[in-house]
């Protein structure tokens, strides 16, 4: 495989927008091309993440639609849908295509618009990523999926609601340093613990928000990347899946797809968890960050709650996790999330993250989880 680099990134502010998801993507993609310093004519393919466009915007065929709105209608394009991991799956596909020598420059991105519909509607649409025969008819929601995981983790390891709250507090503290974040204000443990239950034991402040937003990254072969500023190298990109049904998962306190994707990524890169300086991982709920830090091997199984509480995963800690504010504070426009996480790690490895910069970061990791933990993507990045 040829070496692949990220040479440009762009992200819109996350939150409420009065623009279509295609417009949000195009905005981010324009910034990513400018950042890369290459003309749009150099782009040979677009791989795109969008999840509930059919429901919230009555829009399918979102790949070519996004390309048209951007103004590059003739490139081959495909929409990837792996629930919340969609644009990270698109990214992996692009890495393989450039690695295989098929293309030299590929645009990867994603976007989502959900704040144009009610919370009850978006709750229903997000639940479409769980099983339509066996789970949706029971009234299962996404907070419900992670509440079942949280309860299992509390039973098995003694994880507490206060430890989960510590994840929210940390990520809001980080988000306050990110001008693109949906929430740029700090919160307290008390505020989290006093917020209303959404799906016990998860409360409102354990949950990431619904968000609109777009993100894009430009990938290039080594030969092209060498001509551009500060390439960030893709050291690995791996995917794994797991059973869809919660009843089929043997241990709800673990996420086997995270463990498998991480093992494959570390193997590809010849690295291990202790080599990672900065992490953007999938904290759609506070418990999701806890199980992800464990599954990625950053902490021992069962130690994820304590890691948030003691500051191990804070900016300035041993392994800073989610310096962007994570999905929790930065926001979670689901089709854009994977690309936005990659954009943050690239910004960190370039040393351009400003007040949220992880000093001297050389190796970064992104982890994106799809839906009911049935899809996970893990990628590793490094700089020269």
């Amino acid at each position, binding site marked *: 495989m040829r070496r692949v680099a990220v040479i440009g990134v762009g992200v819109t502010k996350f939150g409420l927008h009065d623009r279509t998801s295609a417009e949000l993507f195009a905005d981010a993609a324009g910034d990513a091309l400018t950042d890369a310093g290459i003309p749009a004519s150099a782009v040979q393919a677009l791989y795109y993440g969008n999840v509930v466009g059919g429901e919230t915007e009555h829009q399918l065929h979102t790949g070519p639609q996004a390309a048209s709105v951007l103004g590059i209608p003739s490139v081959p394009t495909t929409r990837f849908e792996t629930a919340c991991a969609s644009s990270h799956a698109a990214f992996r596909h692009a890495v393989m295509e450039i690695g295989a020598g098929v293309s030299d420059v590929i645009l990867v991105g994603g976007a989502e618009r959900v704040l144009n519909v009610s919370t009850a509607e978006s709750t229903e649409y997000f639940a479409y990523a769980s099983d339509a025969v066996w789970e949706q008819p029971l*009234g299962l929601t996404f907070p419900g999926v992670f509440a079942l995981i949280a309860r299992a983790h509390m039973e098995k390891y003694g994880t507490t609601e206060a430890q989960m709250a510590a994840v929210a507090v940390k990520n809001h503290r980080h988000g306050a340093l990110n001008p693109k974040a949906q929430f740029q204000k700090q919160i307290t443990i008390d505020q989290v613990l006093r917020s209303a239950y959404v799906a016990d034991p998860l409360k409102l402040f354990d949950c990431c928000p619904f968000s609109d937003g777009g993100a894009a990254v430009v990938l290039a072969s080594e030969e092209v990347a060498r001509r551009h500023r500060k390439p960030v190298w893709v050291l690995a990109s791996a995917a794994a899946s797991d059973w869809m049904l919660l009843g089929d998962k043997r241990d709800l306190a673990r996420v086997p797809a995270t463990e498998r994707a991480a093992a494959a990524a570390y193997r590809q890169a010849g690295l291990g968890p202790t080599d990672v300086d900065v992490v953007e991982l999938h904290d759609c709920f506070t418990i999701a960050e806890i199980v992800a830090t464990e599954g990625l091997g950053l902490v021992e199984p069962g130690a994820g709650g304590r890691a948030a509480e003691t500051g191990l995963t804070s900016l300035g800690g041993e392994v800073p996790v989610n310096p962007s504010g994570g999905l929790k504070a930065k926001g979670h426009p689901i089709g854009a999330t994977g690309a936005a996480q990659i954009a943050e790690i690239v910004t960190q490895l370039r040393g351009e993250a400003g007040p949220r910069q992880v000093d001297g970061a050389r190796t970064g990791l992104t982890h994106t989880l799809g839906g009911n933990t049935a899809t996970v993507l893990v990628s590793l990045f490094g700089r020269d």
Partner: protein
Amino acid sequence: MTEPVITTRAFFERARAGQLTAVRCGSCGELAIPPKELCPACHARAWQPVPLVGEGTIASFTVIRVAPRAHAADAPYAIAVVKLQEGVSILGRIVDIPLDKVAVGLPVRFRPLGSQDQTSVGFGPLG
């Protein structure tokens, strides 16, 4: 094409009659619920339907307070992963147990939940 040992439709027909059904692999003995095409353990295609006792204990649960539109009138309601006596697990709605009594380890019994043409998996008190 092989005729499936038990389709989703057949599963729910039996469920409606009060019978929870799993499949057992005729090659390696693996038990699965709901039915799958291939045995996840040995990849054989040799299932036999197996009636289950329908009793188990709650392995994890949540109380849904913000519900999808179709279930908004039911909220709050409990959903649980139930580990059945035979060792397999399945997700179900908890009924007829006060929400503050729902707990990990609580014994429950299968109960079909019905609305018009849709049957779903429920669990109620054992007694």
